[in-house]
């Protein structure tokens, strides 16, 4: 199970993987001013360079560059099949995704060399597009096991039962998570909206440094969307970065990003401010045809 695909290939690629920097097309033009460029002062939390990844023989990420400083929320938008979810899986270390070239560092650490659980302990959290059911394992039990596993990996003291209960009681009601949902098996019998809220509860409890939200808005009605967005916004903090992956602009009405990136065919093809999302809403992804990349 413990697979560290692509580690060898990546090291062979070494540091000469920058040749694609010039080939970004429209992306470089609209890169926003401000914190994103002040990288000398604010250390970049996430720094991805020329990332290539494939599943089987199918290359999905084809030279992706992305930098997210601490404290910022970046959105990635793009048509289906552009590689958005793949990026989230590659960053969180899902097996079967093989990195063939490029680098990704998280607070200066080579994140691709870490096992998935080590990445989690380092502060990488993925809110799944389709949260998984684990029958028989009470939600509470799972939350606590996860929390303590991470604490242990970081050499911290485990949380006591009363403290844990206090913490959950403090955070669950805001997300509309009932006692019953905490007692039930992880995501078992949860509605789509309940599953997504449960993901955000986990995020709130684990307090990660990098939150990756993979299509968290899919399958949510507008009320549920608001609850989830509030939960996410409450977690915005100067020492935390977020990568919000979405197909639609409407989530970004509620979680207003600092930067919006457009992804197409495995690369970031354009970046801009929050207004870019609105523009995309107007024009759709049609502009990103065959020649966009």
């Amino acid at each position: 199970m413990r697979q560290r695909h692509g580690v060898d290939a990546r090291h062979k690629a070494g540091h000469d993987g920058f040749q694609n920097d010039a080939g970004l097309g429209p992306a470089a033009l609209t890169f926003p001013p401000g914190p994103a460029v002040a990288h000398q002062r604010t250390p970049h939390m996430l720094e991805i360079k020329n990332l290539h990844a494939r599943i089987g023989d199918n290359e999905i990420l084809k030279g992706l560059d992305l930098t997210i400083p601490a404290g910022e929320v970046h959105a990635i938008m793009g048509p289906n099949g552009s590689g958005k979810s793949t990026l989230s899986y590659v960053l969180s270390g899902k097996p079967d995704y093989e990195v063939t070239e490029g680098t990704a560092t998280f607070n200066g650490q080579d994140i691709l060399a870490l096992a998935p659980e080590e990445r989690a302990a380092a502060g990488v959290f993925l809110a799944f597009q389709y949260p998984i059911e684990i029958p028989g394992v009470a939600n509470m039990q799972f939350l606590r096991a996860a929390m303590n596993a991470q604490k242990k990996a970081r050499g911290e003291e485990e949380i006591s039962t009363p403290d844990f209960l206090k913490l959950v009681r403090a955070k669950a009601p805001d997300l509309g998570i009932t006692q019953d949902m905490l007692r039930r098996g992880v995501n078992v019998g949860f509605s789509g909206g309940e599953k997504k809220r449960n993901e955000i509860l986990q995020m709130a409890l684990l307090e990660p440094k990098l939150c990756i939200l993979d299509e968290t808005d899919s399958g949510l009605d507008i009320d549920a969307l608001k609850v989830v967005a509030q939960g996410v916004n409450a977690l915005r903090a100067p020492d935390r970065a977020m990568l919000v992956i979405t197909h639609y602009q409407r989530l970004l009405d509620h979680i207003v990003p600092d930067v919006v990136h457009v992804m197409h065919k495995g690369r970031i093809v354009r970046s801009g401010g929050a207004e870019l999302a609105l523009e995309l809403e107007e024009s759709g992804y049609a502009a990103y045809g065959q020649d966009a990349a």
Partner: protein
Amino acid sequence: MPAVQETVERVRALDVDQYKYGFVTDIESEKAPKGLSEDTIRYISAKKNEPEWMLEWRLEAYRRWLTMVEPTWARVSYPKIDFQDYYYYSQPKAAPKSIDEIDPEILKTYEKLGIPLRERDALLGIENSGGSKVAVDAVFDSVSVATTFKAELASAGVIFMPISEAIREHPDLVKTYLGSVVPVSDNFYATLNSAVFSDGSFVYIPKGVRCPMELSTYFRINERNTGQFERTLIIADEGAYVSYLEGCTAPQRDENQLHAAVVELVALKDAQIKYSTVQNWYPGDKDGKGGIYNFVTKRGDCRGDNSKISWTQVETGSAITWKYPSCILRGDNSQGEFYSIAISNGYQQVDSGTKMIHLGKNTSSRIISKGIAAGHSENTYRGQVSAHRKATGARNFTNCDSLLIGDQCGAHTVPYMEAKNASAQFEHEATTSKISEDQLFYCLQRGLGPEEAVALIVNGFVRDVLQQLPMEFAVEAQKLIAVSLEGSVG
């Protein structure tokens, strides 16, 4: 979930071969000559200082056994067993007369296994854990080396002693009930056991008594090439209640050791027996070398009306398991239950299940079986539910779930159902699933390590059954499950 984390720590601390009970106790022992003959049986009977009737009973069984052949219907395969190549009796040379005289090496063995034999220690341990008292009978190879809390139990009228003592001290009870549930000629292994059984526990709970503590027997095979043939007999008289636990381990040895036990339970009118097993015999190494052959006949007889027998088993050890704890629902309104977790890893082969024989009116039975197969193992549930033509209103609910870890293992379900009474209601549910990569990744992404993740998922899978175990045992079983599955991901 501290239990899971502790488990993982334990797992990490283990050797490649994982089995933590694989050590050998270095003591001198006295053995019967190798092989099986009438002389061997006379030797055993003499060693136990048995009355003549017992010897005759054994010899009769032996003569029957000579005419029988090994059953081959189970889904297990192993080289032909040479029954002349085993020792049928082995006891520590210095036979103890009281707990204080037990060879310190044996005491150490049980300490290592986490079984306190000195009542004082047991009490201390219990104060610490806040649990209830547990009386222990410890069987080392062929003899019982210690039984604790005997006096306290006796004041409640409960008899809890090695069966070899019961034969001498309570011959009438033994004569009445021994072989009354599992007849001498029941099957090849039961008949062998009847001929050569060495020790085991005897329990009698008198009328209307609720046994004041959990009773438990701890079986340990130490000696090389030795078979252990334990015999346990539990009788709950009218309105009585007892909860009994059984644990088993053996050293790590290259050759296959033989274990053929017989357990008989008798529940009279309004009585209840709850029998829990955590079986963790040495399963063999990662290539399938060595391990215990576990051929066990366990059967309970709900002899009186409104009686109830409940079997709960956690089977993680043994190279071969052949075991079907069953209930004969003879009394009207009697109830039988079978809760099972059977885990196989490496090259283990498990063929286990139950039989629920409905004879009385309005009898009901419930079967919950969780099979988990990993590595190259084969895991079969085999169950029989039948209703006699007079068993009006018989009801059964069966649920068999199998979980596969990896793609080299197999899970099989073989249910037999037979209703001769039109009013019988039998329900059967079965599922087979795999631990999905997605489930594992979800756990890893939340920070759980691969082994911890599998342990968590599996513990979720078996939760319904774990809940049936007494609490202290449930925690132990939960840890054992994780240890048994060590190396199943990777």
